[in-house]
């Protein structure tokens, strides 16, 4: 199998990423008039930095409240162990019982939806949240499960084989030809 990279296109710049984080933070505050049960949980590893910035921004907007932050590692919950090797990232760090909380689950890219499915199962092992909302920087389509995001930085139509990378410095799509 030979893979050759054709192009890497910048879809969002660093400023666009920052603006998307600010906008999503406002949406979180608007959708949750009572922020006291809200906890923001990033998915290891790509969602963690976004969750951190969302939490900081939400706290700045809300002023009077400190929304807690967590991180969830889903490698033990995947349904595709036999299909690809698992690369362990960093452990789960959920500092409180999630029972009755509203979890804002954060990832960088929403693709097939399988990681989100695994994350929902992982969250349940830390209590039964009242609700889970999903925030992603990029929705690239190709869902294989009935999962949709509540907050989206940018919808990007892609080919299934494209590679999407997300960081504080921007969002890039690389077409991969097999």
């Amino acid at each position, binding site marked *: *199998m030979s893979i050759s990279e054709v192009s890497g296109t910048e879809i969002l710049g660093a400023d666009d990423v920052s603006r998307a984080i600010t906008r999503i933070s406002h949406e979180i505050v608007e959708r949750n008039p009572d922020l006291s049960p809200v906890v923001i949980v990033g998915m290891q590893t790509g969602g963690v930095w976004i969750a951190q910035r969302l939490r900081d921004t939400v706290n700045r907007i809300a002023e009077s409240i400190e929304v807690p932050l967590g991180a969830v*590692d889903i*490698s*033990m*919950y*995947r349904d595709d*162990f*036999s*299909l*690809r*090797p*698992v690369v*362990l990232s960093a*452990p*789960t*760090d959920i500092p409180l019982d999630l029972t009755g909380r509203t979890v804002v689950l954060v990832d960088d890219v929403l693709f097939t939806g399988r990681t989100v499915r695994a994350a929902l*199962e*992982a969250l349940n*092992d*830390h209590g039964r949240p009242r609700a889970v909302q999903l925030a992603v920087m990029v929705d690239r389509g190709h869902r294989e499960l009935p999962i949709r995001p509540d907050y989206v930085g940018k919808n990007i139509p892609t080919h299934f084989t494209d590679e999407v990378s997300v960081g504080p410095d921007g969002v890039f799509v690389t077409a991969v030809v097999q």
Partner: protein
Amino acid sequence: MKHLLSSHDLSVDEIVGILDVADHMAEINTRSLPKVPALRGKTIASVFFEDSTRTRLSFETAAKRLSADVMTFMASSSSLNKGESLRDTIETLSAMGVDAMVIRHKSSGVPLTMTQWTDAVVINAGDGWHQHPTQGLLDAYTVTREFGTKDSLSGRSIAIVGDIKHSRVARSNIDIFRRLGAHVVVVAPPALLPKNIESWGVEVRNTIDDVVGEVDALYMLRMQLERMDSSIVPKLTEYCALYSLTPERAARMGSGAILMHPGPINRGVELIVDPTDVPGSRILKQVTNGVNVRMAVLFTLLGSGATTVLQQGGES
């Protein structure tokens, strides 16, 4: 890495990798619901031809926390008593559809031989005097996490005291401790040292008094009384005078130094002090860490997709 037969099978990177995975398992084991679906649908057989409490239960707990199914084979209640051979026993278990076998046997090399008889992943849980690799891993995990030095033991000194010659724990631990950079001292009477000890890369000392105040970790081996006869240790009291950890000696351990023992303890032999009276005792911590590390080993060998990738010829 398809099997885990010996500490020597593992590169330093693989050792560090397993210890990192064990951190994930440690987090799972602190939850109110300490169970994940990672090995759902896998069957793990524990095949023990020698008595064991902690190793067998530790592996079985680890397997269950990863949602694997567990079969337990006990030599004492098996068809071995009807004359079934080891090979037929292993092939029979294998034919039932077992993904991994955790094997303990009194003869060195049985786990390696078994790999010819089964496609299952073979994990050595102790073979004769040869190896006990998961003990070495869990002890390395205990020491590295105790001293907060994740992937290295450099600058640390560890004394292993007791019957080095007949100890598979010593062989696995010395290998792993040394390759992580620790300075290893062995303390034993000449009759309980292997003939080629010079080639092991360790320092040899003659009494526990020489090391007890100097080392960061004091690792007391179990005197395997069932394997002893009077030609090896003529007088147990003379042995104890030079090699046992007494309350007086424990009081001389450095501040921050830790005490370890693989269990089961012979109270009044290698440990004359009650370990609960030693502030640095990590003996029960080793047992807790054993579950974390064995979960990491099972997950690495069965759950991470590594074996499948190997079978596909390296494609991911």
